[in-house]
């Protein structure tokens, strides 16, 4: 079998493809990646005890990036840094930098409310407001004073979250009348209604049945054309299915103090993580021999 990557130009003549086409195809194959978040030496501590230490990685635009790892590895702590959710915890301290579009997310001039508008978050358990389906979606735009074309905005958000067809005839019904999977898509639609740039999802499907899970995964695949998605998941196969890039976090235990700190072990393209990981700890985790 010829080595496909370094194959000489001869096969091109055989199949009648000219070399420029081949070259173009090669360029296409090489992923074009824009860095959206540039994280360097990030350490997050709660009451001065580090929960996550020295994380550096880049998150790419219009890709799905998954964080996996055992409980306590700091992956949820990490994802909360991307929209400054840790600001809400008084004892939390963030050291290191996260550049978002080149701007320091924790810089003094940055407004955390603006951050959370542009970087939306979906949680493990669907958390709709005790309001109608319509009002759930319209809530964000109203807060922002976007009064014009609210109906269109609501419809667009629901369509993007693949929920419109299921709810279009009962927009005034309570959000609680929806199934768990529908509620989760409602929460995604609620994020989308304020036109964010990034969607953070902290185990968005772990409370859902398999059909609803598939719906959320399909949705991620659709949404990454327009948004950048970061997801924390316990379900490794979910990461394998939906993510372009996967970061594996683990826990380091200090024998003396028995302190547990999350660390980033390996970050690579998802197929590499699941076929030929570079670190033994990653291999042990993804093959189920540890964790």
């Amino acid at each position, binding site marked *: *079998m*010829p*080595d496909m990557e370094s194959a000489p130009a001869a096969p091109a003549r055989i199949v009648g493809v000219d070399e420029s086409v081949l070259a173009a195809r090669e360029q296409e194959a090489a992923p074009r990646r824009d860095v959206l978040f540039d994280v360097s030496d990030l350490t997050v501590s709660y009451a001065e005890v580090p929960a996550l230490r020295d994380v550096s990685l880049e998150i790419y635009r219009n890709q799905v990036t998954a964080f996996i790892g055992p409980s306590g590895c700091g992956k949820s702590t990490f994802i909360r840094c991307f929209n400054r959710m840790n600001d809400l915890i008084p004892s939390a301290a963030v050291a290191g930098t996260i550049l978002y579009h080149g701007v320091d997310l924790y810089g003094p001039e940055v407004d955390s409310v603006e951050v959370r508008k542009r970087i939306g978050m979906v949680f493990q358990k669907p958390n709709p407001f005790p309001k109608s389906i319509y009002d759930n979606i319209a809530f964000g735009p109203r807060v922002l004073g976007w009064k014009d074309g609210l109906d269109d905005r609501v419809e667009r958000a629901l369509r993007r979250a693949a929920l419109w067809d299921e709810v279009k005839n009962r927009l005034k019904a309570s959000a609680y009348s929806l199934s768990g999977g529908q509620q989760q898509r409602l929460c995604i639609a609620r994020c989308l209604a304020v036109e964010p740039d990034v969607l953070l999802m902290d185990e968005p499907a772990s409370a859902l049945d398999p059909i609803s899970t598939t719906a959320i995964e399909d949705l991620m695949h659709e949404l990454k054309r327009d948004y950048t998605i970061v997801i924390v998941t316990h379900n*490794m*196969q979910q990461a*394998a299915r939906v993510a372009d890039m996967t970061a594996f976090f683990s826990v380091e235990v200090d024998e003396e103090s028995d302190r547990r700190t999350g660390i980033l072990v390996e970050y690579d393209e998802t197929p590499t993580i*699941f*076929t*030929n*990981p570079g670190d033994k700890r*990653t*291999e042990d985790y*993804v*093959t*189920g*021999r540890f964790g």
Partner: protein
Amino acid sequence: MRVTLQEELDQLEAALQEEGSLVLRALQACMNALEQSDLELADEVIAFDDEIDATYLGIEEGIQSLLARQTPVAVDLRLVLAILHDNLHLERMADYCVTIAKLTKLVHEAPQDEALVEGFREMANRAEEMIRVALDSFRDRNVSRAEALVDLDELIDRANRRVVGHVLSLGGDPDLREWGLRMIIVSRCLERIGDHAVDIGEQTAYLASGEFREFTDASHRPGTTPRDL
């Protein structure tokens, strides 16, 4: 630890080794049949292939079921894929033994050339050794031993070229010529068995390193080891 997955992987690997030992038996038997013009034994080799096919299918179904249920990843995935390939390589080897047995039946009344038969004996011994090395190095995940298959293969390849040269020099006797042409195929079968053993070695290297590479590459470095003579 995923106990079920590990058990199933162990079972598949054991079945592959079992298939390998069946192939060795088929190879020994078909060469004995050829040397001794033993038609009965040739028929047995042909019938014996059903047993090898059954093992082959068993492994194939086991892999299908495992992939559907267990979603192996990383080294487990590579092991499953390597077994999938090795299974096919072994089954092909067995098919070559059947071909040799069938040729034995076709030529049993023709005159034999002792020098050539002796050459086959040597090739068959080397092929046997290669199958053993391929299976053992796979079991032990021993890449350097697997890589040694290339050198062993070179010896079979040379012997194959000698057979072709010898048959070309057999002259004009039509009976001898027919026998010679059929013997070229026997030689080719043994040579191909060696190639498949090298391919199993490549799977061993893939399993250990995660990257597939050919030990020798007939289409890129002409003159090194032309496996496809």
